[in-house]
């Protein structure tokens, strides 16, 4: 009986210990995956085009150590990001915050897109333009201008005194 009770007790202890170990592992796993994700959005300043997670640079190792310690100490992701931006600036963030100095970065592409769309629309809907894609639009105006410009070009050499002297054919061909 005694030995049986003893073995039960041992089993219970073993079960508890295994449970605790499993819990420990999963907590570590959660921390690891959180750190992995966080380090994936932070820049290694030495290599610049690698994340903290990817880099083997000594500074990246130090910063990973720092990030892990902050996380273990219970700091939130935002607090950890703030810790790094206070020291290294927004450059450490692969996802830069929207503020006045980054407006061009964030909104510039959309402004360009809007400008392009506007131009496309203007050209597409303006029937008076030759390149409007509307074949029925008369382009005689432009033909007339082109003809006038051509004529002006033909006349120009003669009207300009320094070119008044005839150019020899050999020179002209060069």
């Amino acid at each position, binding site marked *: 009986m005694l030995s049986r009770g003893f073995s039960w007790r041992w089993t219970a202890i073993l079960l508890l210990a295994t449970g605790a170990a499993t819990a420990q592992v999963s907590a570590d796993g959660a921390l690891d995956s959180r750190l992995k994700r966080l380090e994936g959005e932070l820049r290694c300043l*030495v290599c610049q085009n690698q994340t903290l997670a990817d880099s083997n640079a000594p*500074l990246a190792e130090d910063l990973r150590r*720092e990030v892990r310690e902050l996380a273990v100490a219970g700091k939130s992701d935002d607090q950890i990001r703030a810790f790094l931006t206070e*020291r*290294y600036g927004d450059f450490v963030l692969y996802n830069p915050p929207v503020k006045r100095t980054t407006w061009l970065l964030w909104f510039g592409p959309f402004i360009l897109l809007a400008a392009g769309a506007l131009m496309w629309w203007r050209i597409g809907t303006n029937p008076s333009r030759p390149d409007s894609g509307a074949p029925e639009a008369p382009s005689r105006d432009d033909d007339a201008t082109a003809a006038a410009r051509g004529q002006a070009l033909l006349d120009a050499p003669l009207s300009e005194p320094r070119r008044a002297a005839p150019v020899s054919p050999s020179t002209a061909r060069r």
Partner: protein
Amino acid sequence: MTRAWKWTLPLAVFVAIVGFLYVGLFRDPREVPSPLIGKPAPAFALHQLHAPDKTLTTADMRGKVWLLNVWASWCESCRVEHPLLVEMSRQNLVTIVGLNYKDKDDLGKAWLAARGDPYAVSVVDADGRVGIDWGVYGVPETFVVDKQGVIRYKQIGPVTVDALQKKIVPLIRELQKS
């Protein structure tokens, strides 16, 4: 759209792009501007390299204009800037504190013995934590700190004659006057 727009707009866009690219040509992407400029220097209390039982704190430097030069015996470019620092200390221009970054004390001391020691004090940052607090991401780096303990300038990479003449020395003179 008027006729003028037809060529001025593409030209303007072209000029703007060329402008950006031209400016980009002369900028070093490795120089990340420090957010600490204009902010109080991060406090530290570190052991001195030549007197491990003594510490130096940022509070000790109050009322003085000083440089914090981050160096290490393993750092190649530190050798390039070192003669300039030695010359600065010979001229007694400013107090230079050395931050011996992630180095072995013996190697650091031997390095200074061989090349001259421009530092009023060298302090030991063996694990690089103070370096992180100061936003150091490469060695050498040099900070100019004013009498109130505010960082006023950061030189990323070796101190050069050009940087000394154009920025660092004039800044030190101005800060010492105030």
